[in-house]
């Protein structure tokens, strides 16, 4: 950001101007005596911390708060209970086929659970901090607002991803113990796609939280987003595809407009279960490759956070 000229820095300090220290502080009679022994010059030549350090501080703080708030444990426990439950009930047959059947079951239900948990975890990341007064405090510091949003999103993303890896990982351990390494790659693919899906919906939650003026509005909007992406979009999309003769590109765009569709396509398509997977079946016919699907999922993570980082600049606190 261009600051223009800086008179008090360029001109010698007049008596009426504060004796600015290099760290931006003022010189007091007391600390002038102490400064040579107790207070060395601040880092970065008197400026606020570098943007990456500030980003790290915000992310680390958000991570700590989420862990202390029991979110990390709760999310990991829910993921583990969900995965272990399905593993127990669907892993009757031994061998790689049983492994894949379990993954198919997990993926089918993860489409509902993972977005819901991610949105519940992310909807208050900004608006909730505003209601507690912390956002006003952060906005008063020399840190770009965008880094506050990105840092908060990164901090929560680490918690959510860790919880998903631990929770689903526990079930994966049991599957590994039961079926061996054959077919384990499909479970790893499912786990990574689930993490991607969780982060995409966390990003949507962050955007909702940044735009909403009140926590209740954010919660309502998050629930509507869940209903749209998880319940409505598939039905509408299939209806449009059935009613109109869309090109493959249009179908691909339509289907990738929903992170759950991408998740299904990534997991179920690789299992050869596309025929039972709604949009995934259609995607299989369009021939969209895995790298494109992964790129689309990453875009679903990056774009909402980028939009939130822009929107927060206009936010009134």
């Amino acid at each position, binding site marked *: 950001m261009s600051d223009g000229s800086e008179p008090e820095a360029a001109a010698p300090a007049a008596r009426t101007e*504060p004796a600015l220290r290099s760290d931006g502080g003022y010189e007091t009679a007391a600390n002038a005596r102490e400064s040579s022994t107790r207070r060395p010059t*601040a880092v970065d030549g008197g400026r606020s911390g570098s943007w990456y350090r500030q980003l790290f501080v915000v992310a680390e703080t958000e991570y700590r708060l989420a862990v202390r708030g029991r979110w990390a444990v709760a999310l990991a426990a829910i993921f583990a209970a969900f995965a272990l439950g399905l593993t127990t009930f669907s892993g009757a047959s031994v061998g790689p086929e049983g492994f894949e059947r379990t993954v198919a079951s997990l993926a089918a239900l993860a489409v509902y659970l993972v977005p819901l948990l991610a949105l519940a975890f992310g909807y208050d990341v900004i608006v909730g901090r505003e209601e507690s007064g912390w956002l006003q405090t952060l906005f008063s*510091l020399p840190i770009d607002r965008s880094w506050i949003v990105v840092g908060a999103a990164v901090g929560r993303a680490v918690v959510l991803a860790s919880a998903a890896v631990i929770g689903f990982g526990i079930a994966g351990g049991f599957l590994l113990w039961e079926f061996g390494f054959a077919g384990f790659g499909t479970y790893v693919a499912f786990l990574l796609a689930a993490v991607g899906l969780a982060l995409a919906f966390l990003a949507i939650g962050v955007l909702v939280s940044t735009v909403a003026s009140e926590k209740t509005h954010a919660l309502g909007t998050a629930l509507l987003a869940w209903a749209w992406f998880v319940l409505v979009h598939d039905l509408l999309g299939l209806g449009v595809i059935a009613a109109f003769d869309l090109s493959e590109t249009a179908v691909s765009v339509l289907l990738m407009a929903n992170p759950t569709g991408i998740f299904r396509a990534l997991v179920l398509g690789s299992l050869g279960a596309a025929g039972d997977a709604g949009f995934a079946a259609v995607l299989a016919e369009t021939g969209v490759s895995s790298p494109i699907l992964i790129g689309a999922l990453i875009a679903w993570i990056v774009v909402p956070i980028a939009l939130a980082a822009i929107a927060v600049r206009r936010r009134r606190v």
Partner: protein
Amino acid sequence: MKITITDVRKRYGDVVALDGPSFEIPSGSTFGVLGTNGAGKTTLFELLVGHHEPDAGRIEVGGLDVERAGHRVRERVAFLPEHAGFPSSMTGREVLSVHARIRGLADREARIDDALETVGLADAADRAVEGYSNGMERRLGLASALLAEPPVLVLDEPTAGLDPRGVATFHEIVERIDRETDATVVLSSHVLSEVERLCDTVAVLEDGELRTVGDVDELRAAGETVTVVLQSADDPARLLDAVQGWGEVVETTNAIEVTCERDAAFDLLSAIDSETIDRFEVREPGLEAAFRKALATETAAGDEPAAETEVDA
């Protein structure tokens, strides 16, 4: 570090929050911003630290345009918002650590210890904020503002919610800053006696407009009325009759108070020379009188009925 406010305007929808106040806050001064609720004090402070952009006008802090260089301004300004809050699970020390790290301060631990000691939170430094009282949270906010020892401190109602001991500590801190440093302190308060004690200069805002600005002593002296307090044990009823017509007369439990023109006070005392007076006292007008006068002048000019102003003085 001088602050210049020039014709600043800000609206929120149909509500005019600031309607063109222009004044300067001298470098190294302790400056009070007074006004009734909704006068525009908080909006002015938020514009001053770049929370929002003004619709028109300009604010400069040490020659830096806040709108264009908000980040640099916030490096030099510590702001204690009216509704500052902290995550309940963080300790006081952790809160200050976040502030210090974002500001990139060196020698963080010593600064944090100093700030906690200054506001009297050293013993509670490692307790979670959820265990703090409102006053302790306010003191933690003050500690965060003091942490960087910035050239400009902007404090929005800093003593709101503080107990008498906390208020006294705050007064000592501001007085020490005023005495030992060249820092510019800008504060708002509904407690006029506090502003009178701490500030060199004040501005009075009302409905987003500047009503008056000036040196506290001059504003106080500019009050045109004085209050003469009289006490007569022998015949208070006779004394009450004697003072009628000399000004606004109020009979209290054990005295009669006559608020009159400064020049008329001497004539009043001459007129009641024959009465038996056990005690008399002439009270000079305080800042409250100047404050009320500033508001009343505009109200009269607007042909509106005089309204009671909400001042928690």
